[in-house]
């Protein structure tokens, strides 16, 4: 047993979604970091990933982490995992998340995530918790989200358009 590896499964460190223009659309941190550090990491990574050419490999070593990223239309999905973690399964975590968004929004696009960022977070929390896969069945995740939406609709009282605008 020569490899000294003691890591804890597929612990993701963080996930970032950003556009081709480098605008951050969603950030999820699974390790405690200061706001300053988060901003620094984001800036560095966005730059690094955007500089890469299309045919390049989806994995890169960055600091002591491994970055796994993939581009879907105008959005980059970018995860940081520990060095010994499984890159391919992380790539498919990204894909499954995209599928979930797609199914929920119906052919998802960047705007959906901008205007419904809270939903994107809720879906992510159902799928991954603390950086680990919680539920990998697409049906089960969406069922949980739809149940919540149902609760929401029951609770919601309709509001007049005027009142809405007046209050903004």
């Amino acid at each position, binding site marked *: 047993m*020569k*490899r000294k*590896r003691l890591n*804890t*499964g*597929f612990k993701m460190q963080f996930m970032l979604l950003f556009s081709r223009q480098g605008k*951050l659309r969603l950030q999820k941190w699974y390790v*405690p970091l200061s706001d300053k550090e988060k*901003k620094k990491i984001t800036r560095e990574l966005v730059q690094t990933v955007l500089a890469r050419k299309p*045919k*390049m*490999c*989806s*994995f890169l070593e960055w600091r*002591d982490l491994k970055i796994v990223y993939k581009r879907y239309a105008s959005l980059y999905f970018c995860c940081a995992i520990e*060095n*010994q973690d*499984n*890159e*391919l*399964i992380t*790539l*498919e975590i990204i*894909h*499954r998340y995209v599928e979930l968004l797609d199914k929920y*929004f*119906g*052919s998802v*696009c960047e*705007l959906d995530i*901008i*205007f419904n*960022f*809270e*939903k994107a*977070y*809720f879906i992510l*929390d159902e799928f991954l*918790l*603390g950086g*680990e*896969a*919680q*539920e*990998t*069945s697409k*049906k*089960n995740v969406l069922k*949980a989200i739809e149940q*919540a*939406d149902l*609760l*929401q609709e029951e*609770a*919601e009282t309709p*509001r007049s358009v005027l009142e*809405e*605008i007046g*209050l*903004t």
Partner: protein
Amino acid sequence: MPAVSKGDGMRGLAVFISDIRNCKSKEAEIKRINKELANIRSKFKGDKALDGYSKKKYVCKLLFIFLLGHDIDFGHMEAVNLLSSNKYTEKQIGYLFISVLVNSNSELIRLINNAIKNDLASRNPTFMCLALHCIANVGSREMAEAFAGEIPRILVAGDTMDSVKQSAALCLLRLYKTSPDLVLMGEWTSRVVHLLNDQHMGVVTAAISLITCLSQKNPDEFKTCVSLAVSRLSRIVSSASTDLQDYTYYFVPAPWLSCKLLRLLQCYPPPEDGAVKGRLVECLETILNKAQEPPKSKKVQHSNAKNAILFEAISLIIHYDSEPNLLVRACNQLGQFLQHRETNLRYLALESMCTLASSEFSHEAVKTHIETVINALKTERDVSVRQRAADLLYAMCDRSNAKQIVAEMLSYLETADYSIREEMVLKVAILAEKYAVDYSWYVDTILNLIRIAGDYVSEEVWYRVIQIVINRDDVQGYAAKTVFEALQAPACHENMVKVGGYILGEFGNLIAGDPRSSPLIQFNLLHSKFHLCSVPTRALLLSAYIKFINLFPETKATIQEVLRSDSQIRNSDVELQQRAVEYLKLSSIASTDVLATVLEEMPPFPERESSILAKLKKKKGPGAVSVSELEDGKREGELNGAGERGTDASAIATSNASTPSPSADLLGLRSAAPVGSAPPSAGSLLVDVFSEAGPAAPSAAVNDDNFLSDLEPPTENSDSLLVEGPSESDSAPSSSSLGSEDPAPPLPESDELLNKFVCKNNGVLFENQLLQIGIKSEYRQNLGRMYLFYGNKTSVQFLNLQAKPVEPLVEGGAQVQQVINIECLSDFSEAPLLNIKFRYGGALQNITLKLPITINKFFQPTEMASQDFFQRWKQLSLPQQEAQKIFKANNAMDTEVLKAKLLGLGTALLENVDPNPENFVCAGVIQTKAQQVGCLLRLEPNAQAQMYRLTLRSSKDSVSKRLCELLAEQF
């Protein structure tokens, strides 16, 4: 806009987001945000109580603003209020805000914890999940304190909903990572392990992450998970692609769970139970077989998921490292991937093969792919893939392919990406040394490295080549010739000048016979580079010049002129100026003999682990597989022997430790200075080290050959080694003020400490948490002088240090020095005792040590020819004149180390005396005041048996005996 609003639709929020998106400039955006912030603030502060919906909307806007990258310093309280709303959507937004924005604000955490507690107790699974998500997202210690006891109960309770169990498992994992001390599994352990059998695949998927983490910390308690994991894995692997319904991903059954199961198994050694192991091996074979089957889908997701499992299985196979068949199959599979059209797979295959290369079972199989890997290094377009190829070449390198691999890496270096050059240089340097069959190849390689990538060649690398050249005389001539040629290049790297200067300074004489490299040509060549170099290199060159004066007297005038020139002797850099002045003086006043002694060829460096390795380790960080392999996977003996001891970070710098000048003086000229100072006159420096040693003296006096370290009149025995001390009147006040505690008996380890100093004169004699005692000593004939340095390692004062003319007080962090003059009156075998007392805090510290003064310190080396040696050997043939010991080697039997030790002993090491070149013979005379004792020594190593035979003959039996005892501990 697309079909957005499922559910609520906070129109105000959508309008705000649109506004922001429509902002034409950053300034406009900031203006719009500030307006919104002001609005929200006034709403929150307003008299009118906000309804839940408005609160939710504003909190959501704040969150959006935060996510845009702006700081948010209010709204936390409103978010916390939302937590206790009974409307799900409000609660949900409250939790989201807290997950994203809350830091450990203790006041708020208390309120948040309260809300979480209510939701956990609500028995409403949706609320419970929200609360658990929040704990998992924040994961603070306060939360662990509040909930670490409750969550395991939720996890294993029979009536908990599956979705809640999943959240509870991962929530607990997060808390365990934050505060392992607070998460006590105890009674729950077995029920948690049995979650691996759960009907619900989602529950298993979540629980296994927790179990894996707990298993790593408490493998024994969780070891029942192995058989459960194997049977679960076996069921998944053998299931048809549709059996697992929604857990099948692109025709691959449960890829995430499979990977996690394989990862869990990597926390344990191979299963002991034959049946379980058989089943597991079957699973692994099935996974390898599936890789050969035609894909069930053309989608990349299918192949990714399938290969994710395959790579994890290969990791497990490598982890076990016990199934040659599987290892070789894994290697063949990876070999196929090396040429796959998917860049990702090529990358992973290179990475994974790196670890396979370290297994004895698959090392050869990995090597067969060398051409493909070299090709990858040359042609891959992505630097991260090329980096993997370089790593793999490094890992697969052994003696059979070292020349090829080093050559390929060197040629790659010429075009390599800047980001990886330094690491490549280190790797080439390590491989070249490790697998050098002849050292001329090694020297060539390193000089090539400097030529190609001089800027990336760190000090460690060029220090190392010099160490090796100095230690191996078979390569010195070649090295001199090669550096001489390399320096011919019109522009050569400064590192080349350093190596060249050093080597020509030491070994330039070896090529001076050739008129093309006559002394003057060598000197002119070096000096032509001088003005282009930095100060440290110039300093090194100056040292090389003075060495030239010694090697080649004919260069003296030229070099003196250079030294005398204003640009040297008046150089604005002190170091250069000092060297110029001193070297000039040295060369003009010292006799040839003195010059030859001072500027003698450097002695061999002690063998040590290459510091380059340490540097590479540091660079790669602890997780670097390839480096740890290098250490573990030594498959062949190294030419350079004892490479494994310690991690000495600064190879040459250590040898400079005693050099007063801070700049690296590799030639070690300066440390020679204090030798030859006048012998101490008795009584000149009086020390009261032993003022307390009085009571100990009588017991020691029983022995005829004892010493007296005492200042009381040494009545008993004039045959003693007297450590000179102050007059009685000097010592009296101090001893009276110090109370009457008896000196402690010598520390149990004091003999061991003594042994450390038999072959050396300087070092740390003793160290504990409070005090460090360093020693420097020098001997001449029967006299010696020892400097003791008492270092206070604490930050407070030691009071009443009893060592007289030393200040009786040592400041925190400070050091005081004490000088002891030594005279050897007659031969002795017991070392003098040093008793130290001082007050630290209130407590009196009382330490007794043996001073490292041994009989061999008074050796004068005697050179003699073979014939004389054997003649004297025969003369000393009385049985009592000989002492002999046969003993096992305690250290590696390295010739250079042995030589260094024998020289350190103080005797002359006689070459070409013993007919067997493996043996060492030495001769010396021990000088005491009473008499001189001639000694002959013979050491016969037996490498096969790892034994030595040591024989000593001297004119005095007690001396033979004592030397034999001392030396037997040294090898």
